[in-house]
């Protein structure tokens, strides 16, 4: 069936099964490499995207559920060769990744957190990001990167 949704600011009408996973559609139909499968069951956060601004595991979202919604992947945060988003830049400045397979998921989860709560405490950051796994163990730098964007006062 035809399913309409907006991805990174562009409206798409795609031919997809309603039970197709959003993750597969983003990767295979739209060629986006940012959302990545790590576990397939919503346990690792590597496939995190923003659905109407809220972080979701795109491996658990079916196309029927995504219909009519606005999706943001990490590719939607910065134009090619354009300025990086504040979160992306903070991740670089704080060296907040190693292999970076998990990084798009963390960047999006952090983006959503800071949007909803511009002055998160360290506990807020931990709570918001604990659903994203980093096997390389860059957590300390990730928290520092996000904390650096905390709005003061």
């Amino acid at each position: 069936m035809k399913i309409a949704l907006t991805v990174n600011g562009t409206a798409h009408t795609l031919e997809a099964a309603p039970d197709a996973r959003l993750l597969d559609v983003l990767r295979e139909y739209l060629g986006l490499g940012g959302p990545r499968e790590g576990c397939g069951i919503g346990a690792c956060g590597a496939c995190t995207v923003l659905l109407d601004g809220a972080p979701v595991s795109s491996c658990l979202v079916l196309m029927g559920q995504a219909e009519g919604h606005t999706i943001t992947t990490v590719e939607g945060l910065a134009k090619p060769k354009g300025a990086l988003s504040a979160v992306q830049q903070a991740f670089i400045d704080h060296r907040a990744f190693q292999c970076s397979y998990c990084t798009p998921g963390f960047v999006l989860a952090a983006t959503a957190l800071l949007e909803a709560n511009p002055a998160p405490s360290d506990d807020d950051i931990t709570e918001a990001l604990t659903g994203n796994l980093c096997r390389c163990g860059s957590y300390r730098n990730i928290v520092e990167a996000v904390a650096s964007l905390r709005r003061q006062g």
Partner: protein
Amino acid sequence: MSKHTGAPVGVGVPLLDARERVTGAIPFVGNMRVPGMLVGRVLRSPLAHARIRSLDASAARAIPGVVAVVTAADLGKESGPMLQYGRNVKDQEVVASRMVHYVGEPVALVSAETEEAAEAALAAIAVDYEELPAVYDAQEAALPDAPKVHEGMDSNVFVHAKLRHGDVEAGFAAADAIVEETYTSPVAQQTSLEPHVAIAQWTPDGTALTVWTASQAPFAVRTALAGVFRIKEPSVRVVVPPIGGGYGGKGGMRVELPAAVLAWFSGGRPVRVLLSRAEEFVTVTKHAASITIRTGIMRDGTLTARQITCHWGTGAVVENSAALVRGALVRLVGPYRIGAVHVDSYGVYTNLPSAGAYRGAMSSQATWAYESHTDALARAIGMAPVALRRRSLIRSGDTFATGETLHEVYFHECMEACLERLGWDEPLAQPGGSLRRGRGVAVMMKSTNPVSRSECRLELGADGVLTIFTGTVEMGQGTHTALAQVAAGELGLPLERVRVQGPDTALVPFDTATNASRSVGMMGTALLNAAAALRERLAEAAAPLLDLPPDQLSVADGAVASAGGRSLTYAEVLAGGGLSRLDATGEHATNVGLDPQTGQGVGSPHWHQGAGACEVEVDTETGKVRVLRYVGASFAGRVINPDLARLQNDGNVIYGMGPALLEEMVFDAGRVMNPNLSDYQIPSLKDTPDWLEGVCIEHEEGEFHGIGEMTLPPVAPAIANAIEDAIGVRVRALPISAERVLRELDA
């Protein structure tokens, strides 16, 4: 010829491709799309040990969209892939012909236009099995009457490595106390978030193969594939873009083989094999280990003798485990002055998935045993655990159990750095209630590959850009960035003028593998040699332009200069000589080893050294352990990039908390019961210590020294030692689950 000074070595810069990493643009293999690419899938054995009575794939072949179905009957012909293969031992089949030996063993391969067609084909292959007795535990499997994992074997023990140093019986006789304990580690899984993935494509005439793969060992994969297809190595091209974590799990040929075999049968079309998370758990694992360690000690802390027996559960496939089990001999001993040492390291087949290196390979299991044991020894003579370590840790000039004299020894410095940062001597506040806090420390010693080789080629272009051609795999550890920093320093170029061409066996010279924390030491030294050669080439090229002999020219800061002050940039040298490029190659090789009967000789070209100390809180009502504070220290020689070094140290500790507290593959009749990231948990942000520090012990004139593992193996014993300090019980089985702690408390 002077060397450049003021090199960017020692400066913390981001990974060279940081932008690609935060924008999702990094070209992981899983993101590659080769035109015409087919889906490759593997049908796997549902049983741990069985005879295949019959296999019928005819229905699968008839499914629309299915391109190739490969069974054992298709293999071992005059040309094309052989049926049997193996790295240390030829104990594997591309797909099982008559027998299966573990749950997950490949039985048939399918390539298809779509996932759906491939899935349908797998379901349509009919296999009739006759189940056979199986054995899962390495010690049971080593018994004479155990079921044999492979037909025709007398024993499931495929290697028994021995180390014999001194008279242990005399040592035990002289001891004031003897402590014997057994420590176990379960099967675990490396769990890189990027699964194993490979794409293979043959040329239309079937003479040359290209494989794009997420591998830590491109040249080993090339050798293995060339062997299976009986073609020359240069006919196989292996390309490895940055990979999404390896941790040892991507160190051998795994998915590259089914991809290449399917591509062979798919009419020149490329085939991708991408493992599911569940398949990861049956593809490569961490060795289960049972280590019995017996040590004699004098009242003053002198260690008189040590006897170690270790059974390594290897699964049904040796892959590289014969080498790992032999290599484990020296990793089992511990960094101590011990009068006499005997080690027996047994590699044992079981009916489980294949084991391989798991970050801190063999050392994690070994350190779990010997560092928990060090605390037990201290208690046996009423000495503080730290005091015993201060007395008995190896120092420079001491003789190790291999008979070799050790130099550049920093175990004491690593331990003391941890103790100081943690505040070991500060009073420890007890929160009260059911919560108890304690502190623990552990030290480790690990060998790197005794025999290995790295080559590096440098190419300076007419535009003054330097390209490093290296077989080192970039898997997040940052070696490409570190190598670029070294090269920039050696040639006096800004980092922006240095490029890295990573592994592509058609373009880069040989490297053994990216494993055993060897890359900055081995490839780094090869690079230094290449840079020295390139400076000579530059001086030679500039000599006629400056009318001076090469030895009167200096090469530094991007220019060739005479003592008189005349100077040409590299680009001017190349232009003046009409050269489009200048290149030079450097090599670094090591070749040490042990006598196979006695384990005497040289165990490692250099030794990895690390330590950890921590403060834990145990809830005596629930058994839950929290690591409050942790500090790890390793000997780093000379740090190239302190920011990346910190990440490696953090990564070691956090990774190490997995096997320490969480990770265990649970089996029922050889079937993995928790092959997913919900039931097999790896450390999350909430599992990390509240406070974490890493220390690199440096030596001014030190060599580059890998630090990708050193602070990992101490994690589990440091935590266990802290638990005993807190609540007085000793856990001897990993992981240290709440249940285990409670059981020990109730005992």
